[in-house]
Every structure is written in C-alpha cells, then in structure tokens.
C-alpha cells in the first residue's frame, strides 16, 4: 500500500515513535500497538545525535534510543522485525541518510530503506532547496518524500516544496518544534487554505494530544493527523515508572484509538468542500 492510498478511506491517523525507545524489544511492541490502535501510516524515528528540530519530549526519546544502541543498521533490522502491515515512514535527519554506505549521498540509504519496506521519508532539516539528490533516489526506488509545511511557508517556497512532495504533506500546526500542546492553533486553518489547491493529502501535526483535538483538526479540513509527542510521553512515563512493556503498549493502543476515533468523528462533521477534488 502506498502512502497516498492510506488516505483513501477517510482521515489517516499517523502516529510517530522513535525506533528503539527505550529499548529494541519494547519499541517493537509499542509500534505494533499503534497499528492495533488504528494507525494508517506509522512514522518511525531514526534517532540522530543532534535533533535540532525536536522539542524536549522527542529529544529525550532520541537520547534513550541512542543509549539503547540504535543505529541506522539496527533501524533497518528493526523495520524488518516489525510485524505491521501499514506503511512506514522513516523520519530522520539528513546527515544519517547522506552518510550511509560507502558513497556519500542519499542513494544507498534509500535503496536499503526500500529493501526493508520503508515507504517514505520525512527529513526535518532538509528543505526543498537541498532535496534534489534525495528526491531522485526516492524516485529511483519508488519511495515518497514528505515535506513539512510551516505556518510561515508560502509563495515561491511553498511551490518549490509542492513540486517535490509525494505521499502526503506534513502540515505543521503552529510555529515551534514538536511537542504536545493543549490547544490547536488557528494557524492550521490558514495553512490548509493555502494548500487547498494542491492535490496531495494534508496531514496535520505538532501539538495534537487528544481525540478531541484530532476531531477538531480533521473537521477543519485535514486529511490526516500526525501525533508524536503525546505518544512518546507515554513511553517516557512508562519507562520512568518502570512499568512493564505490555502495560505501556496498552496505553499506547488506547490513546491511538482515541485519536483515530476523533479523526473519524471529525471527518463526519466536515462541511462539504466543493473546491477539493
């Protein structure tokens, strides 16, 4: 199933977890719990030592995962070991993609990712201006390249990005980096309006932490929701409390279901959008 297909039957719920957080085995269980909770696509973080685009929650997840021994090689094993059927998107920083293999450049990484079944990438520190080589490699191996559209992205920059994007566009709900917030920004609506003319699913992320949020976001026109920090928080709390992985997996599944249900409810409340294809 391609990424775009995941949006075919209603709003897509796209959860994020850092692979290997807090350890390899638990993390496999947690990711699988997300599918059970209704995930349509899963964003898997491959941790980079300098995660400049992340908030504290995911920064700490990155530290736990790296301390647990996560590497690009282990990451690919992790993907192979995962028992999920929904499409997987690898979220990581460009240096790991660029440095993989013997030749510098993104091709070896993309080739390997394709071989283990990754469907696409989100690379927060790779703007459209620098993404040519990665886009090329993705095309060669049939993978999608997701771009993040910020509330401040418009005009020429937006166009350049939309020319290169595939799979879905990650609509950043508000300024700032990742992190669970208790309200959803007005900026989201404006971003969705700006993107209305582009024929690609729009998934909204940054700050969504409850079913009610998810519902509102989808009601306002999003094709999907992306949730990271709220889920990573559950992993972190379980880790700190020393809870067993089954308990933590159950909590993840519960929140995932709440979010998915919220998204579905939001879609049903959506006024018809005559301008959307």
């Amino acid at each position: 199933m391609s990424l775009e297909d995941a949006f075919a039957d209603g709003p897509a719920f796209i959860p994020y977890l850092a692979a290997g957080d807090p350890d390899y085995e638990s993390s496999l269980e947690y990711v699988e719990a997300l599918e059970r909770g209704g995930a349509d696509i899963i964003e898997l973080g491959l941790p980079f030592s300098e995660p400049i685009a992340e908030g504290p929650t995911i920064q700490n997840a990155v530290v736990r995962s790296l301390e647990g021994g996560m590497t690009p090689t282990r990451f690919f094993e992790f993907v192979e070991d995962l028992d999920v059927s929904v499409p997987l998107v690898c979220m990581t920083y460009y240096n790991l993609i660029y440095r993989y293999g013997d030749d510098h450049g993104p091709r070896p990484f993309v080739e390997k990712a394709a071989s283990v079944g990754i469907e696409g990438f989100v690379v927060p520190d790779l703007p459209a201006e620098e993404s040519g080589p990665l886009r090329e490699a993705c095309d060669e191996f049939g993978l999608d390249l997701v771009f993040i559209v910020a509330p401040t992205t418009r005009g020429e920059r937006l166009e350049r990005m939309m020319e290169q994007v595939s799979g879905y566009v990650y609509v950043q709900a508000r300024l700032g980096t990742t992190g669970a917030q208790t309200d959803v920004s007005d900026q989201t609506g404006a971003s969705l309006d700006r993107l209305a003319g582009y024929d690609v699913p729009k998934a909204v992320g940054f700050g969504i932490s409850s079913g009610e949020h998810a519902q509102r976001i989808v009601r306002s026109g999003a094709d999907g929701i992306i949730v990271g920090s709220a889920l990573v928080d559950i992993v972190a709390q379980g880790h700190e409390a020393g809870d067993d992985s089954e308990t933590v997996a159950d909590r993840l599944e519960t929140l995932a279901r709440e979010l998915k249900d919220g998204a579905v409810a939001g879609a049903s409340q959506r006024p018809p959008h005559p301008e959307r294809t």
Partner: protein
Amino acid sequence: GKFGDYGGQYVPEALMPAIEELEDAYERYVLGNEDGFMDEFRTRLREFGGRPTPLQRADRLSDRYDREVYLKREDLVHGGAHKLNNALGQVLLAKYMGKDRIIAETGAGQHGTATAMACAHLDMPCEIYMGKRDINRQRPNVFRMKLNGAEVNPVTVGRGTLKEAISETMRDWATNVEDTHYVIGSVVGPHPFPSMVRDFQSVISEEARTQAREKMGRLPDSVLACAGGGSNTMGAFAEFVDDDETALYAVEAGGSTLDVDEDAGVAPNSASLTTGSEGILHGARTTILQDHDGQIMESHSISSGLDYAGVGPELAYLVDTGRVTAVNVGDDDALTAFHRLSQMEGIIPALETAHAFGYLERVAGPDATGEHDGLGEFVVVNVSGRGDKDLESAIEETYERDIDIAPNMDEFTGGL
C-alpha cells in the same frame, strides 16, 4: 551561500522565513551598508568595543623564534575576546531589522556573555539558552550575563550541554521568528550566518593587514589562528585570502590524541579539519567529527571554546582548496604555550588562543627540526581572547600534566 559543496541551509522549514529575511537583511545592511548600518557598526566597535586592537610586536617571542612575531590583540576587545565583533554586529542588525528580542545559545558562556553585553549596550531584551551542566561549570559567565540584564534559560533536556541548548534555541526561534533574532556565535549554521559572521569578524584581518604594512612595510608571511567553529580564524584570515604571499594556518585542538573511538562515539580532540569528514551539521554541509553512521561524535579539548564537532563551511572549503593549512596542537602543548606566553609576554591567553602559540613553538621553537617551517620571517598570531576565564581550568589541567615551565602550583590545589 555555498563554498564549493559546503554551506547551504539545512534547517527546519519553520525557520526558513527567518533565514530568508536574514539573508535579505544581510545583503542590504551588511553588504550594501543600507541606512549606514556598517558605519554605525564600525563606530560602535571602535567606541564600545575598543577597536582597533593593536598589532603588537612580541619582543621575547621574536627573540625565541628568531623572526618577527606580531600579536593581533583581540584579547583587548571589550569582554576579553573577538566574540563581541560578531555579537555586536548581529544585535545591531536585529535592531535594523525591527526585531525586538535576541536569543542565543552558549556552551562555555563566552558567546553568551558577548551577546548579553551587546544587548545591554543596544537596549535589546536578551535570553540565553545554556545547558544545565554548563551552567554549573561556568558560573562566573552565567553571573556576567545576568549582570548585563540577560535571562539565562537552563536547558535540562538530554545531557544539558551545548547541543541541547542549540536545539532549544532553534525551537525558540522557530516559535518566535517574527520578532526574534537568533545570534549564532561562530561562522557556522545555515547561510547567511557563515558569511555574515565572517564579515563581522573580518575587521581583525582588515586591521592587521593595514597595521602590518605600517609596521613592517609589507604583508606577513603567515597568519596563525586557532580554529574551533572558526570565527576568529575566518576573521583573522578573510582579508588575507587573496594575498598569495601570506600563508594561513588554522590550528585546531588536537586534544589528547587524534585517534577516535568510533564505537564509543568519542573523538578525544576537536580537529574536524584534520580528522573529520564531510557531513551536515547545524544547518550546513561542512567537515565534521562523525562516526561511520553519521552520528556526531563527542569532541574534546582542554579549551571549551574549541570543543565543537564541526567547523565553519568556508574554512573547510579553504582547507580543501589548499589556501588554508589545517594543523593541530594537543592539550599538553597548548597548556605549555599558555604558560609560556603568560611568562614571556605578560599576556595570559585564552586556552583556545594558546593552541596557535603551541604550533609556533612546535615548528619554530628550540626543539623544532630546523627545516623550513613555512611560517616565514614575519608571523602574525591572532590572540583571540584573554585567559582570565580559564584560570580554574589552567590550575586543574596543569596539575594533571605536570607542565615543566609552569610556576609552583602547590598553593592552588583545589582551585581558586
């Protein structure tokens, strides 16, 4: 914004508008001197910062090395280092851009204190992000920033050091791009920072070039500067790059050894130009210390100001093209040079700066091989900063290493 393949703008999308706005401002105000920006900057550098700094003949070093050794005295700049050149430029630029809030990250605190000073001078609110662990190790600098009216925001995430502070500052900038400018402290980061910081720092070589002509009637045969991120290096080199007769030496921190432990992810040095490889870090493609996966390694140097796993993209490029020679000096030799300059010239240098003098000793000192050393007869060393900030480290490290030219340290056991 490119230096060969290096440079670029590898930043989160949310920052791009800020970066583009800054690029525009850089072109207009810095390159184009719009509204007399550069004039005001230079005037404030002179009057507030204390420029020009002297190009001083080092009499005793000249004797020791049997050549003319001149010191470019950036240690005399307000705040005690070249750092203010850049901080003042960026804070003033932010004012011209209509920003009303300044943020910056700091590791050891030097860039933070320079930024806080510039903000107090220019009446700009200032917040400095600093890792909690760094805060505990660098209390005098934290106090200085607070005295200058800055807020110091402790960053507790991760290990609480510079890398986390950088992420946190990026996060703040991404959240507040409209009214906030992020003052990056070296010739690193996404374009236009490497070019802009170089331009603010190039006053060093601009002055040195003129002063060399005045004093010696010609350009120097070589210029030496220590290199961490590379801002004093690029500042000391920029105006000499087109002068083929002047050799340029970037002296990196060799740390305890150039060998790296890839499995532990630790480089016991900060010699990215010498031992690093191409990669993408903090917004730019450049030479960095990384393991085979591309994870950034923990670097090390006796000097916290050189302790950085990357280097400015332009400097990496100039080394690749052969215009700049990258060399390195280890902790022991740097510390010995720290003591030598203090004793022989009455200038206590920053430990960063001491690396440049360590190289001079190695190739031109009494124990040198005597072969052609490439430095020539007229050498300029950039004294990038003063060492008052390093007194505690100097005590601790001198003890550990038993430096033979050091004064008797017995009464300083346990620090100051």
